[in-house]
C-alpha cells in the first residue's frame, strides 16, 4: 500500500451544541440562508421577458416535456439570497489571506472596470478580425509585457489556468521530442518531492512517467541526486522557482545546464513568479517553458476558485510548437493564426502541437492583468516583488519568536514553518490553523509542501501594510504561546466557534456523497 498521508483528522471531534442559539439561527449580521431549491419555485421569476408568439416550433420533435426542476426567485429574493451567502465567505478585501503559494493580493477595481468596457466584454471571439483589432492588439501588448518580464522569446496565450499552462508547456516539450524523433525513448520527467500536485498529474496526462527528486536539508533540489537521475530517457524536469518552500533554487543555472546537456527540457512552474518579477528573468536562468498565473502574479481576482489564466512563455527551442490560435501582426493589422497550416505559413518553422481551447484564451483576465501591469509599470512591479519578499521575511522573523521556520535564512515571498513548536502541546496543527479563524484570519496553507512535517506556508503578499502584518504576527504569537502554555487543547480542537459553521464532517461527506439537491420525500405520518 502506498501512502500519501497528510495526517489531519477529517471529522470534527464531538463538541456539544452551541448554547447561544437564537430562534432563527441567525447571529445578528450573520443570517442563515436556505438553498434556492427551498425558497424558490418553478413558477416564479426575477426576469421579465417578452411573451413568445406561439409560432410552431421547428425542433424536430425533440421538445422537452415535463419539469426540469429549476426554482426561480424574484429579484429581491435573489439579491438577498446571494448577499447572505456572500457574508459567509472570508475574502482578501476583509483581511490578510496568507495562503502560501496562492498569492491572495489586493484586486484593484480599475481592472474590473476596464474588463467591463463593451469594447472588450461585448465582443465575440469569431467576429470578423477587422471588428476586433483593439482586442487583438491588447493580446499582443500583453504578450509583449510577458515576454519582456520573463526574457523569453514566445508566449502561448490560450491556456485557461495555471494547470492548463503546465499542460501547454509539457505538450510543447512532447512535440519537440516528437520532432527530434525521441518521443519513444524520452519518457521520464523529474519532479521534486516538494512540487505542486499539478506537476506530476500534468506529466502523466502527457504520457510521461514521473520520477521524484529528493530535497536537500535546506529545502532545495538535491543537485547531485538530480544529476544522478539524468539519462537518455529523460524528457525534462519540472521545477518550481522560487520553490514551494518559499526558497529560490540557487543552483538553478546548474540544474538548467545539466538537463540541457542530458538532452532534456526545463519546465519551470511559474506559480511563484510574483516573487521575482523585474528582479530576475526566467529566460536568463535557462528555462524552456513556464506558465504564468495571471490570477496570482498580476492580480486578476481568484473569485472563489476561478477563473484563472495561464499564458505560457516558451524558449527558442519550444516556440515553434506553441498551440493555435496566436496573434500575428501583418500588413492588414493584427491577425489570428487559427490552424496548423496557416500557422506555418505566417511564422516560419511553426509546427503547432494542436489547440488547447475553443477560442483565444481568457480575454477578460488579459484585460485585468494588463491594467494591473500598466498601473504598476516596470518600476512598480519591481517594488511589488521586493515588498512581497520583505513582508514574508518580516513575518518569518517575527513569528520565529514562538514558531519554528522549516529552513534557516531568508525566504522569498512566503515563509514556511513546520509544526515542531507544537510538539508535546497536544494541539494539532490543523487545530492551530482553525483557531486563526476565530481571530479573524484565513488560515495559511496547511500540510503543503509534503516535504515538511505539519507544513504551514504563509504568503502575505505586497499589499499588506506593516500595521496589518504586526497585528497578524501578534495574534499568531499569542496563539502559539497559548498552545505551549497547556490547558487549551480543547479550545483549539473546538475552533472555530465564531465562524458561520463549526468544523464540518468531511468523512460523512465522502462516505455517502450528496452532490445535488434532492427534494425530501413527503413526511410520513407519525405512527
Amino acid at each position: 500500500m502506498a501512502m500519501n498521508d497528510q495526517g489531519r483528522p477529517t471529522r470534527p471531534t464531538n463538541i456539544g451544541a452551541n448554547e447561544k442559539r437564537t430562534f432563527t439561527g441567525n447571529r445578528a449580521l450573520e443570517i442563515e440562508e436556505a438553498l434556492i431549491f427551498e425558497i424558490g419555485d418553478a413558477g416564479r421569476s426575477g426576469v421579465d421577458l417578452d411573451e413568445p408568439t406561439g409560432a410552431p416550433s421547428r425542433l424536430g420533435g425533440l421538445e422537452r416535456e415535463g419539469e426540469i426542476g429549476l426554482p426561480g426567485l424574484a429579484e429581491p429574493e435573489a439579491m438577498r439570497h446571494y448577499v447572505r451567502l456572500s457574508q459567509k465567505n472570508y475574502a482578501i478585501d476583509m483581511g490578510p489571506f496568507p495562503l502560501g503559494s496562492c498569492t491572495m493580493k489586493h484586486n484593484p477595481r480599475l481592472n474590473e472596470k476596464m474588463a467591463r468596457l463593451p469594447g472588450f466584454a461585448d465582443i465575440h471571439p469569431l467576429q470578423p478580425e477587422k471588428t476586433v483589432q483593439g482586442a487583438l492588439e491588447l493580446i499582443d501588448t500583453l504578450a509583449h509585457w510577458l515576454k519582456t518580464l520573463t526574457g523569453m522569446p514566445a508566449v502561448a496565450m490560450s491556456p485557461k489556468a495555471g494547470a492548463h499552462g503546465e499542460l501547454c508547456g509539457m505538450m510543447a516539450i512532447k512535440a519537440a521530442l516528437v520532432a527530434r524523433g525521441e518521443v519513444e525513448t524520452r519518457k521520464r520527467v523529474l519532479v521534486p518531492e516538494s512540487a505542486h500536485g499539478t506537476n506530476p498529474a500534468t506529466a502523466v496526462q502527457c504520457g510521461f512517467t514521473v520520477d521524484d527528486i529528493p530535497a536537500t536539508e535546506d529545502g532545495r533540489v538535491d543537485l547531485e541526486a538530480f544529476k544522478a537521475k539524468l539519462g537518455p530517457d529523460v524528457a525534462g524536469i519540472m521545477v518550481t522557482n522560487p520553490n514551494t518552500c518559499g526558497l529560490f533554487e540557487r543552483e538553478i543555472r546548474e540544474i538548467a545546464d545539466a538537463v540541457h546537456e542530458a538532452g532534456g527540457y526545463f519546465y519551470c512552474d511559474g506559480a511563484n513568479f510574483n516573487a521575482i518579477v523585474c528582479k530576475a528573468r526566467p529566460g536568463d536562468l535557462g528555462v524552456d517553458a513556464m506558465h504564468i498565473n495571471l490570477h496570482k502574479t498580476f492580480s486578476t481576482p481568484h473569485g472563489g476558485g476561478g477563473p484563472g489564466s495561464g499564458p505560457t512563455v516558451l524558449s527558442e527551442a519550444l516556440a515553434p510548437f506553441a498551440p493555435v490560435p496566436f496573434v500575428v501582426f501583418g500588413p492588414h493589422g493584427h491577425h489570428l493564426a487559427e490552424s496548423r497550416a496557416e500557422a506555418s505559413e505566417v511564422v516560419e518553422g511553426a509546427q503547432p502541437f494542436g489547440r488547447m481551447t475553443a477560442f483565444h484564451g481568457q480575454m477578460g483576465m488579459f484585460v485585468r492583468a494588463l491594467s494591473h501591469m500598466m498601473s504598476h509599470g516596470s518600476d512598480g512591479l519591481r517594488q511589488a516583488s521586493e515588498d512581497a519578499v520583505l513582508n514574508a521575511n518580516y513575518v518569518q522573523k517575527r513569528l520565529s519568536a514562538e514558531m519554528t521556520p522549516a529552513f534557516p535564512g531568508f525566504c522569498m515571498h512566503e515563509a514556511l514553518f513546520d509544526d515542531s513548536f507544537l510538539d508535546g502541546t497536544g494541539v494539532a496543527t490543523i487545530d492551530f490553523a482553525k483557531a486563526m479563524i476565530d481571530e479573524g484570519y484565513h488560515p495559511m496553507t496547511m500540510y503543503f509542501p509534503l516535504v515538511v512535517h505539519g507544513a504551514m506556508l504563509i504568503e502575505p503578499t505586497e499589499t499588506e501594510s506593516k500595521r496589518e502584518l504586526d497585528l497578524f504576527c501578534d495574534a499568531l504569537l499569542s496563539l502559539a504561546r497559548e498552545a505551549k502554555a497547556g490547558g487549551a487543547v480543547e479550545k483549539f480542537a473546538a475552533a472555530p466557534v465564531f465562524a458561520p459553521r463549526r468544523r464540518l464532517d468531511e468523512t460523512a461527506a465522502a462516505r455517502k456523497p450528496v452532490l445535488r439537491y434532492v427534494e425530501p420525500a413527503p413526511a410520513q405520518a407519525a405512527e
Partner: protein
Amino acid sequence: MTTKFTKEHEWVRMEGDVAVVGITPHAAEQLGDVVFVELPDIGKSFKENDDMAVVESVKAASDVYAPISGEILEINDAIVEDPAKVNEDPAGAAWFVKIRPSNPAEFDALMDEAQYKEFAGS
C-alpha cells in the same frame, strides 16, 4: 494459520490453499477514516506487486498491491458497501480479497509478525 506481512502494510493469511488479504491496523490508522474501497473483479489474475485495489480516506488515496501472485477468488463486498468497517476490524472482518496463489514461494518470503512490527515501528 500463519499470517504474513508486506512492506506495503498488507497482511496475508493462508486458509488451506487460499490466501486472504487485507491491510494492517497500522495502515488503517495512518489512512484515517476510510471512505471508499475499490476491489478487483473476481477471476482476475495479478502478479506480485501489481496494483490490485484502492482504499481512500478523505485526504489520502492508496493503491493496494497484490502481495503475492494469483487469481482473485472472492472479494469482500461488505467493505465496499461500508468502508468504515476497514477502520473497525482491519485484521479480521474487513479483509479485502481471497487469492489462489500461483507461486507459494512468494508467501514464504513475506515478513512474519515480529519482522513487520519492527518494520512498521521504525
